């Protein structure tokens, strides 16, 4: 039975001739980059006025009315990454207030309804975990609260706006399971706005690919995965790991770049938990784990930014523990860092200054030579057309990410530390970044140390991996072997979270 129908919707400057026919329990994913129009559709359906120039809404068998207020009960589910709640007030109190407002219930009844839903969601945290002020909660806990709030509203239509973006893969999988379970229980339709195809695969949804306010292609995910007709759709599906080759083993491996001997970082570790490993030039290693597992603490110790609790680190044949800070700085000249965050580059610097700083600071090269290397690096990452005297602050997240790669290229590092390089990027940008990093590794040949919680990213960039939990390594080996036969539950959970995106995985929910 048709739940809700949108016919020929146009919103001034945002959406053109959008049509959608949703049945109860349907799941539709609006797929596209930022600014494609999916946000405008979501906001209109959430009840926000917009400059609607054309189109009608129809609820069930009712009359078609001019598009404006939604005609069915909706619940809006935002991304936990987008800071949807006031950070200074208890998350639980805000969520209960929303339920109370939407269902016109007293707060005590709304709290009961919220608690009831939360208690039946598998993997959800206890209610007390939602009591603290919102900024003290992890993204995943907040996401559970947001999902529960949406379910408790008993909607007919759930509007999920990038609701799973930026979450740890294992938690994201649990949330997807909870979402589907609630959909079966309550029978609501789901309209999901996404920048990547992963979610569509998890939800088994129908996909509508949007660009510049128009739907360019649509169809079931199973069909679109293997056969896209529109060139734009192809870029999205190309980014799916099923089409991505695993990183080839490096033919030659040079001298050891990092050697760790019985290194312990966290207080949770005990004697015997020390890490011993070696990373050679040209080789690659992924540190896989959830947020808070201790991967970054390990990297900081390996680079000499922090002292280990015990053990010894040798970086480029020099014992890091005996060096002064000044000597460590000199040693770290051969280290490049590429991070999936927008604030690691100085926003005041220009593109040119950002890329040429390692050359000027470390090598004292003449200006024209610096300019040559700089321009070559910018060209390789596709930023040659951007004016070089533009400030970093004016660049998009994708451009900043590429700029980091250009800076890494000119520094000709022995070791490249790559921290969640694809975080926050849409599918197209992720595809480009992946290629750039692989090209960087192939051409410059540094050792790659990749920090990620995504097995697909690890497989695309590295040959070997160590699974980190509680500050210690619980499993290690070649990625291909780990994927085939994971021993630890944590490893299995991380692989499951990348379900549908690894060449070996064929399972769908």
């Amino acid at each position, binding site marked *: 039975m048709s739940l809700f129908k949108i016919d020929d919707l146009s919103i001034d400057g945002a959406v053109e001739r959008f049509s959608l026919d949703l049945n109860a329990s349907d799941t539709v994913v609006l797929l596209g980059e930022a600014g494609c129009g999916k946000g405008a559709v979501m906001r209109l359906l959430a009840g926000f006025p917009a400059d609607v120039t054309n189109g009608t809404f129809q609820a069930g068998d009712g009359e078609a009315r001019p598009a404006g207020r939604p005609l069915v009960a909706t619940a809006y589910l*935002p991304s936990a990454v*987008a*800071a949807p*709640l*006031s950070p*200074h007030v208890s998350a639980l109190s805000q969520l209960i207030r*929303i339920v109370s*407002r939407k269902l016109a219930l007293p707060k005590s009844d709304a709290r009961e309804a919220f608690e009831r839903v939360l208690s039946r969601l598998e993997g959800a945290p206890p209610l007390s975990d939602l009591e603290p002020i919102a900024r003290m909660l992890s993204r995943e806990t907040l996401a559970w609260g947001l999902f529960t709030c949406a379910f408790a509203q008993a909607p007919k239509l759930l509007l999920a706006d990038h609701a799973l973006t930026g979450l740890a893969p294992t938690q994201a999988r649990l949330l997807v399971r909870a979402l589907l379970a609630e959909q079966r229980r309550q029978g609501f339709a789901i309209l999901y706005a996404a920048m990547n195809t992963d979610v569509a695969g998890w939800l088994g949804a129908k996909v509508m690919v949007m660009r510049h306010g128009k739907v360019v292609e649509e169809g079931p995910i199973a069909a679109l995965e293997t056969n896209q007709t529109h060139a734009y759709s192809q870029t999205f599906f190309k980014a799916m790991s099923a089409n991505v080759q695993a990183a080839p083993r490096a033919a030659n491996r040079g001298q050891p770049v990092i050697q760790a001997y019985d290194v312990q970082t966290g207080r949770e570790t005990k004697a015997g938990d020390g890490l011993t490993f070696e990373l050679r030039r040209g080789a690659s290693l992924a540190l896989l784990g959830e947020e808070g597992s201790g991967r970054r603490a390990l990297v900081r110790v390996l680079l000499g930014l922090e002292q280990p609790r015990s053990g010894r680190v040798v970086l480029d044949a020099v014992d890091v523990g005996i060096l002064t800070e000044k000597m460590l700085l000199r040693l770290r000249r051969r280290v490049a860092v590429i991070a999936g965050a927008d604030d690691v580059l100085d926003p005041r610097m220009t593109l040119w200054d950002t890329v040429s700083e390692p050359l000027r600071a470390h090598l004292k090269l003449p200006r024209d030579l610096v300019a040559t290397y700089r321009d070559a690096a910018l060209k390789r990452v596709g930023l040659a057309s951007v004016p070089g005297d533009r400030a970093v602050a004016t660049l998009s997240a994708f451009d900043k990410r590429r700029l980091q790669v250009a800076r890494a290229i000119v520094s000709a590092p022995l070791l490249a530390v790559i921290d969640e390089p694809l975080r926050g990027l849409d599918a197209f940008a992720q595809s480009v970044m992946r290629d750039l990093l692989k090209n960087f590794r192939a051409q410059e040949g540094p050792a790659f140390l990749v920090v990620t919680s995504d097995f697909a990213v690890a497989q695309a960039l590295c040959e070997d991996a160590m699974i980190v939990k509680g500050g210690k390594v619980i499993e290690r080996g070649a990625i291909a072997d780990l994927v085939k036969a994971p021993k630890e539950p944590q490893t299995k959970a991380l692989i499951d979270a990348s379900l549908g995106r690894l060449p070996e995985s064929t399972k769908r929910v």
Partner: protein
Amino acid sequence: MVRFGLVETGRYAAALLGALLLAGLVQAAGAEGGFVHAAIVRLIALAHFDFGNSAMTGAPAWPEVLKRLPATFSLLGGGAAIALVLGLPLGLILSWGRALRAGAPLIQIVAAAPVFCAGLALLFLAHRANWDVSAKTGLGFWPSVFGGDVGGVARALTAFGLPALVVGAAGAATIQLAIRRAAKDAVREPYRETLRWMGLGAFEIDRRYIAPRVLAGLFANLGEVALSLFAATAVAEWVFGWPGAATLFIHSVALGDWDVAALVLLVFATLALTADFLGHMLARAMGDA
């Protein structure tokens, strides 16, 4: 919150200690003998709550300053009340973009006027209107208020009101700015929109989540508000001839009475630091409600 409180208390204590040290050094400036020796002697004396003696009268400095504080606090209290009455609504109104665009030039021009110019302008108006602006009359304002003497209040209104207005206007400028800045930060927070999409009303969001942030912003700037009030009080005392602590300070410096000058400085510094400390604590408590 506990950790924040401990850190802030530590900072406050350190600042108070610094103020005490400053007072000791100033007192040592006027003492005979070597400066270092005099400074140590004065600091030890201060630690025993011995604030020295007035070089002019020979009497202990503390009662001299204490005698003058009521006049200063009287002006400060009136000024603070006017600052709140003027500054709070002004800050809220000017948080509205159109109002700000309309009112900005006028506020910018008024803010460019030094406090003593504003005081002289009011004195001129009072002279033309034949109002009594003597300090003696003005000092009777608060006793009349607390004593329920309506006639006394009416008589003291202009004599008290004009200098208090000078102080209040300076404080109001700082208050409205603190509110505007806090409002500007708060309204741009992403949750303001997201909560609306999730089903809360705009007024409800502003009342429950934005207004406390704005108030917290005001409290966070309490130290600055206090400083602007103190500076304006000093000028108002001088312009309107009030026998307050600020006037005592100016006379003490002119006559080299360093014990008294140092004590006045200590009082003002303590008040400003206390206002700053309390403001930060309140802001934190409100901000994380």
